[in-house]
């Protein structure tokens, strides 16, 4: 799930998707305007997942992270949906075909499911040690 190849791919995706400028507003609750997030920074635990016709690619697995590490998960869904990281309770709206990234600091240990609310799919489980 980690690795520089993935980073390069994501940078390309970010570039082609034409995302807006970086912002720190996702650290501030209650700020409803959309937030663009950057490509995974080296040292982050990163997963990139596609949901197509109800199938999760790559198949639902584990994303290992060390406690205190930043986790970023980029999801592209073919249907509108909502992404939810259990335990950390980070959510993101998914729009068809548009990659969305959630990013959080893994400050609790345990295994946490990342799922979609409408299609009820477990995309990945984040294992924080």
């Amino acid at each position: 799930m980690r690795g520089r190849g993935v980073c390069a791919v994501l940078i390309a995706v970010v570039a082609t998707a034409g995302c807006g400028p970086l912002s720190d507003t996702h650290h501030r609750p209650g700020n409803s305007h959309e937030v663009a997030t950057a490509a995974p920074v080296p040292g982050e635990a990163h997963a990139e997942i596609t949901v197509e016709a109800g199938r999760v690619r790559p198949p639902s697995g584990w994303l290992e992270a060390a406690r205190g590490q930043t986790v970023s998960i980029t999801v592209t869904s073919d249907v509108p949906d909502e992404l939810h990281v259990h335990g950390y309770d980070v959510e993101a709206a998914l729009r068809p075909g548009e990659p969305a990234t959630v990013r959080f600091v893994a400050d609790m240990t345990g295994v946490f499911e990342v799922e979609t609310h409408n299609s009820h799919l477990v995309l990945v489980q984040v294992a924080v040690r």
Partner: protein
Amino acid sequence: MTALPHGTAPWGAGYLDVARRGEVLIAHGVGDRADLPIPLFYAYAGALAALVVSFLALGLLWADSRFRGDRAGVTLNLRLPARPLRVLTLVAAAYTVGWLLLGPEAGNAGAYLVYVLFWVGLIPASLLFGPVWRLLNPFRLLPDRPRRPLPPRLGYWPAALGLLAFTWMELVAPEPAAPPTLLAFLTLYAAAQTTGTLVYGHGWLERGDPFEVYSTLAGQLAPIGRRADGTLVLRGPFDGLDAIRPAPGLVATVCVLLGSTGYDGFSTTPAWVDALQSGPLGRAGLGTAGLLAAIAAVALLYGACLWLAGRIGGARDLAPRFAHSLVPIAIGYLIAHYFSLLVIEGQRAVILSLGLDAEVNPDLVSPPVIATVQVLAIIAGHVAGVVAAHDRSVRLLPPAKAVAGQIPLFVLMLCYTLGGLTLLLA
């Protein structure tokens, strides 16, 4: 690219704003985190301890049965106010149903009250104080006027089915924490217990109420025991276990507890999660098949090993008479799987149900503490099971064959214990 996170700190005040809906595949019905796999070293240490204890037991333990079951213990002159306690339970049950019926979608305490405080909490409560659900059971407020005697063939089968239904809801149902799911289960449960009690009297609850059976079986290990005649006694856990009387469905009940907890262990592994959401049977279909297969595997292994023990030991029909030795193993599994849930989500249950202005502390138990408790629970269950089975063997089998006859039993328990440890690694 959008990200709409809620709240600054994950466990901060904004936490309750997050809708908890459509929760899927959560291992224990509720809860947002699962335990990390235990370190490999813990598993090896546990497995080695189980092996050594088994062989020591085989060679060194007593040659004549020592446990006295129902006759053991020091009588306690204690009369508990059962009626007021049962009325209190009824009030607590009404409060829970009130949450489920009227509570908000987000931050509803109902599911936490049922899955954490009631279902998981019954284990430590019973291990400390004996058969607590018998004492608290609100259905015992109904009159004890049997219209006909309880058919002996029924035995524990209704409880086994009830436990299967509950664990199915907890581990397989599409939305285990949704109020409609829980209300449907509670309605069926209440209807079954009311009907059973009105027809067969309180004798039904002893065998047919899944939670009373669950709490009474766990409570056999408690220092406070209840004899068949109702006397409360102080006794050791092995005398308590020995007092479990074989009955139809007892093996099935214990196998449901072991098998469902085992399924709980592998149901969140990536391979199974992937199969559940991409397989042709659908999530509920494959989940049901997996749960039933886990229970059947536990039961088949038990049947085969007991058959072999009977062949070697020259005795017949041993299966029901060794079911008591599986109880501590099942309790060990349950503690290993639910310990962190009780400690962490138990806080949430209390905070939500009482509306406290407090936060859940997810660091109350660290991963090494959780792993230690898990391995110790599995090994303690194994040791207790081996000792209980040994004592029963030397009572039932002829002295010349008692040692050889126990070998299949130890193999059986090693399989359960190594299986349990493997699940903690997954």
